[in-house]
């Protein structure tokens, strides 16, 4: 393999990893507050279809992304009300959100299947993109990829260095204690869940406005679920999510790599690769039960009712 091909592959890995990065960043914040939202896939699909429709209707990809963010928030709000206010089971509610989002997105997008639009165009960053190797891989993308870089660093700072991050961790570890010292647990969790929805929306918009760019039913193909695995892989650490997203990106474009090497394997078998990789990674990461218990937010998935004091 020549270096030109390697650069192309790594460039594609970053591009493919970007939607995973967005959605997993959202989910990690949500999980850090102690809420497990299995509705990622549904929120992402809604983001994709609404982003596409808005961009298709207005001709502005920017408006598409904004509408997708808003849609993600609205979707996550349904989840938040059920889970946080009505004390519904997080797993069941998340599944309902995914099933609902899958259906609704197909329903409202049925008119624009196969249409194409002008998505975001790549912008090579002056100077940085001239760096050999790295420049082509990292700094010759579209604006959303740069936004995902910025978002990662902002979140690393917020989570690790600020009081907001401290509050988030406190709520996720022990909501009863947090409530007792006067932190508004439900408010923190609402915000975290809605942030997760917003990021899922952007992630979906990235799929329909940049990656393909078009709308097809179920186009996210399980990325919402892979993002959930990614959070486990990253041990709930923001920085590692970026690494994990690009690794998964690489796994999903393995067929390019293998074609480059001149192998011929059925594309249907290669299509399994990201899912098989997800399973393998989860087995490796979770095998150390002790470590996972230490790193996972302690109250993850458990209902908190402020009326009941522990």
């Amino acid at each position, binding site marked *: 393999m020549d270096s030109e091909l390697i650069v192309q592959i790594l460039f594609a890995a970053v591009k493919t990893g970007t939607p995973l990065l967005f959605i997993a960043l959202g989910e990690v914040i949500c999980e850090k507050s102690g809420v497990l939202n299995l509705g990622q896939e549904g929120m992402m699909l809604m983001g994709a279809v609404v982003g596409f429709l808005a961009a298709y209707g207005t001709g502005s990809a920017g408006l598409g992304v904004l509408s997708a963010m808003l849609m993600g928030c609205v979707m996550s709000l349904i989840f938040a009300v059920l889970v946080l206010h009505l004390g519904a089971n997080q797993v069941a*509610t998340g*599944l*309902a959100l995914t*099933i609902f989002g899958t259906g609704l997105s197909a*329903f409202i997008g049925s008119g624009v299947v196969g249409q194409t639009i002008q998505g975001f165009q790549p912008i090579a960053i002056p100077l940085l993109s001239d760096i050999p190797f790295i420049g082509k891989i990292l700094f010759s993308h579209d604006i959303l990829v740069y936004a995902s870089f910025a978002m990662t660093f902002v979140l690393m700072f917020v989570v690790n260095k600020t009081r907001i991050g401290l509050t988030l961790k406190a709520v996720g570890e022990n909501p009863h204690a947090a409530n007792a010292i006067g932190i508004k647990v439900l408010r923190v969790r609402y915000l975290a869940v809605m942030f997760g929805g917003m990021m899922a929306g952007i992630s979906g918009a990235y799929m329909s406005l940049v990656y393909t760019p078009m709308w097809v039913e179920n186009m996210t193909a*399980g990325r919402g679920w892979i993002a959930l695995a990614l959070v486990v892989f990253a041990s709930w650490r923001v920085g590692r999510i970026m690494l994990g997203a690009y690794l998964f990106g690489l796994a999903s474009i393995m067929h390019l790599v293998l074609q480059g090497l001149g192998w011929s394997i059925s594309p249907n078998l290669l299509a399994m690769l990201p*899912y098989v990789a997800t399973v393998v990674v989860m*087995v490796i990461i979770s095998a150390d039960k002790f470590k996972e218990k230490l790193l996972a937010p302690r109250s993850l998935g458990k209902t908190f009712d402020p*009326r009941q004091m522990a």
Partner: protein
Amino acid sequence: MIRIQARTEPSSIMKLVSPILAIALTLIFGCILFSAIGKSPAQALHVLLIAPLADSYNIGEMFVKMGPLLLCAVGLSLCYRANMWNIGAEGQLLAGALGGSAMALYFIDSESALALPITLLAGMVSGMLWSAIPTFLKLRFNSNLILTTIMFNYIALYLLIWAVHGPLRDPQGFGFPESAMFADSTLLPTLFESSRIHLGIVFAIISAFIAWFILSKSHLGFQIRVFGADEPAARYAGFSSKKLSWFVMLFAGALAGLAGISETTGPIGQLVPNVSPGYGYSAIIVAYLGRLHPLGAIIAAMFMAVLYMGGDLAQIEMGIPVAVVSMFQGVLLFFLLACDFFINNRLAFSNQATN
């Protein structure tokens, strides 16, 4: 003013009323939605709910769809009762269809009376294998069951697609991604003339009763219930979580596998890429709607089958995208979960304002 108050004891009436209320609210939501897109709500409801039951052919089709939904939902009810979050019924169904169909193709020139039972068994074993892998990974490596079963759904789907494009493709099929039509010896007999109702629905109803018997009459079922209701108590009592996990997962896998092979040897008659319109996912809703009770699942599966039929008819007669079914399923589960809030809470009316 109205306040929300915690009940001292959960309401057993509300447990039964809640699914009915959720269905009613979903229908109201449907009416509003159809008005919003300019269709007549009355007509839409007629197509969705009444038309599927209007003639004997449609009723037959309803039972055809109910079979796989119920088989999957019964297994899932048991899993969820034991707190095993198996989301993999779809993959287990596809695996059953794939493995069983491979066996059916092996018997393509056979007239043996054993061909059908062996084919069905192959489907069940394939489904069990597909649920066994995530179970093993969970018990041995502590991996998250929700995520692994989901991943195995995708893997099963691509494996099936690969098989119909490759090894199992009909050599005389002009290159279509389909297997050859199965021999009569491996086709499920239909129950009535002029209808496609086949043995699958009988399997489903029997399985529901078996699961109900296990849950309420056997010590094993008791252990499953304790395990789901209160895991520390189950461990304190010395129940083996491994044994119970294996049991519910293999049971669910076998039933989902049976659902898959009953589809290909029943109404379809060959292996095709789209064996299931998401029955395995819908079964999650069915299980919840049936209150995770195997007999409740029978009624819930019937309702879900009507909804599927309604979706098909709505597309044919009114041009409404068939995706509306999955959207309604999501809404239904939302409403169900919301109504369940009132099992443990109630509205308190008082005319005295609090300070």
